[in-house]
């Protein structure tokens, strides 16, 4: 939490989003009971990947424009 500005913090956040959750899901998939359950877990991860990507783009732009204005 010692990153100097919002954009770098965003950078750190996306790591947690993508990689952290990905690893958690990977671990859980290995011990999931059924193929369907495993697929569902992967779906959750994919969904977060997608939404995370979109949202971080949005926030980044929002930040850049906010900071370039004043």
């Amino acid at each position, binding site marked *: *939490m010692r990153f100097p500005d919002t954009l770098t913090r965003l950078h750190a956040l996306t790591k947690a989003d993508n990689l*952290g959750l990905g690893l958690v899901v990977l671990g*859980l998939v290995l011990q999931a009971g059924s193929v369907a359950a495993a697929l569902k877990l992967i779906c959750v991860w994919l969904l977060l990947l997608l*939404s*995370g990507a*979109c*949202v971080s783009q949005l926030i980044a*732009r929002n930040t850049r424009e906010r900071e370039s204005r004043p």
Partner: protein
Amino acid sequence: MADVLLAAAGIILVTVALGLVPIVRGASATDNILAVQLFGTGGVAVLLLLGAVSGAEAIVDVALTLALLSAFVSVAFVKSYPAASSDVTRSSAMYECRA
């Protein structure tokens, strides 16, 4: 095994909670929403872990819902606090006064 998963869930919770600390200290609005985004992701992870521990499949549905809506809230934030740019323009004019 369950203990390991629970420990993981606990660690994620603590980390996510630490992520909230900057808000307490009065960070910018964007930082706040970043913390919420992190909270959403962390919540999803914890839910998945808890689901694996308790074996209740429906918990994954809660995670799905949370994942979808945390993205939704972030979009709402960007629309509510526009940077007056071309991509995202005014969304929050006020109700006109009808005095």
